[in-house]
């Protein structure tokens, strides 16, 4: 619990509630309609959190690379069927954190409660920023925000998934990247 200020012994008493798991690329960690029992903290690899529209098209809500959490909060906290699907898009090592872990540490530690509140506000900020961006930002602004948040994902994720996350078409993403290259490529004329 780096940064949480939680004492080792407080954490140790709850640590037995944590589990680790390995997933292969393509494995589904949470299926829509099931209840999300765990939050997933990524040690290595990359998870995708997505929703399917009524036509069966996938929309990517979040990527979770190393150090990120992925879960369906509504399902996990309110015990509802999950609206989101979580799968591994790389071979991944994940820590599974159930509600029992949060409950155990929350009752034992004021510092953890405070830390968890900060994490929740951070998460809400992230979601608000994302809603604002999806409603009111141009494609190039969405792209710049994306590469600040996820610097190496362009190397790891197919373009069509990035376009899905940005809420733009793959053609728009290509246009944004082509225009950037036309401005920034000093070697030779950018080539189509």
């Amino acid at each position, binding site marked *: 619990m780096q940064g949480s200020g939680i004492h080792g012994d407080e954490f140790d008493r709850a640590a037995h509630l944590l589990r680790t798991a390995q997933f292969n690329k393509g494995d589904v960690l949470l299926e829509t309609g099931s209840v999300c029992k765990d939050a997933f903290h990524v040690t290595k690899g990359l998870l995708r959190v997505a929703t399917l529209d009524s036509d069966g098209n996938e929309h990517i809500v979040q990527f979770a690379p190393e150090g990120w959490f992925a879960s369906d909060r509504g399902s996990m906290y309110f015990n509802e069927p999950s609206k989101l699907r979580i799968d591994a898009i790389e071979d991944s090592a994940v820590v599974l954190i159930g509600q029992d872990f949060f409950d155990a540490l929350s009752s034992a530690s004021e510092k953890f409660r405070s830390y968890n509140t900060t994490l929740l506000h951070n998460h809400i900020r992230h979601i608000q920023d994302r809603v604002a961006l999806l409603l009111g930002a141009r494609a190039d602004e969405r792209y710049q925000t994306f590469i600040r948040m996820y*610097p190496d994902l362009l190397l790891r994720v197919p373009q069509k998934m990035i376009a899905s996350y940005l809420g733009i078409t793959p053609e728009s993403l290509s246009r944004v990247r082509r225009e*950037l*290259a*036309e401005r920034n490529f000093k*070697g030779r004329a950018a080539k189509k």
Partner: protein
Amino acid sequence: MTTDTLKNTATNEPMTATDYRPIERVIAPPRAHMVGDGFRVHGFLPATVGMQRMSPFLVMDYNSKWDVPAGTTPRGVGVHPHRGFETVTIAYKGRVAHHDSSGGGGVIGEGDVQWMTAASGVLHKEYHEEEFSKSGGIFQMVQLWVNLPAKDKMSTPKYQAITHARMAQHALPDNGGSMEVIAGNYQGTQGPATTFTPVHLYNARLNKGGKAELEFPAHYNTALLVIEGSIRVNGTEQVPTDHFVLMGNAPGKILLEATEQAVVLVLSGEPINEPIAAYGPFVMNTEADIRQAIEDFNQGKFGYLED
């Protein structure tokens, strides 16, 4: 045959086991994995010995013979960047088409080598050439990543298209076959590729019973890959097809003998003794260089190439 045809140059006595450059390891092909959907490769380097042990050779992906079914959409690897090194693609069977963000492109046919200096950065893509893709057939390639010294990592990208016809051929004695020199020098025969640091790269094309002697400075990292047939190394070690031989860094000659008709890729180079920071398609010297490479790639500084 016997090995007494080789003489110790210092004593003029027949070679003995201690006169040969020692064999450090013979490595069977690691389990193949796909690169895109077009390359089914055994990752000999860096997986088996690490990134520095064979410096300046960082990566060796070996696509052993693979019978590719005919298809309508060419298989391959989509647009990806490189910075800080060179890619060397050696085509043994099948044909690959490639394009890059500097406007370069072409087809690497059987027996050809493409030496691409990515240096400061290119985007490129590699696919099975269209006609090959339509007909399908046997596909066999090697791709090497050759490191660049720090002073040359940000130099201008360039290509060397080395067709089979351009390669220097050095006839081996007793109708033993031919040493095809891609880069460096074999007994006075100079290969066409230019390199940033001393590198020797040959295809030993040996007839059954054919012999070849190799000698490199002891500190040059040196290895063999048996592409076709089988060989005996230093008179004793039998090495089958698709196996990699890591030579020790000690003085001495290497003796290759073909126990059947064989093709052997020979690589030897002066190590680049500089730190390596590698992330995906970037090989630099520091973590800061890597962050800069990612940022430059994200901001379009490698150019643009349609997928």
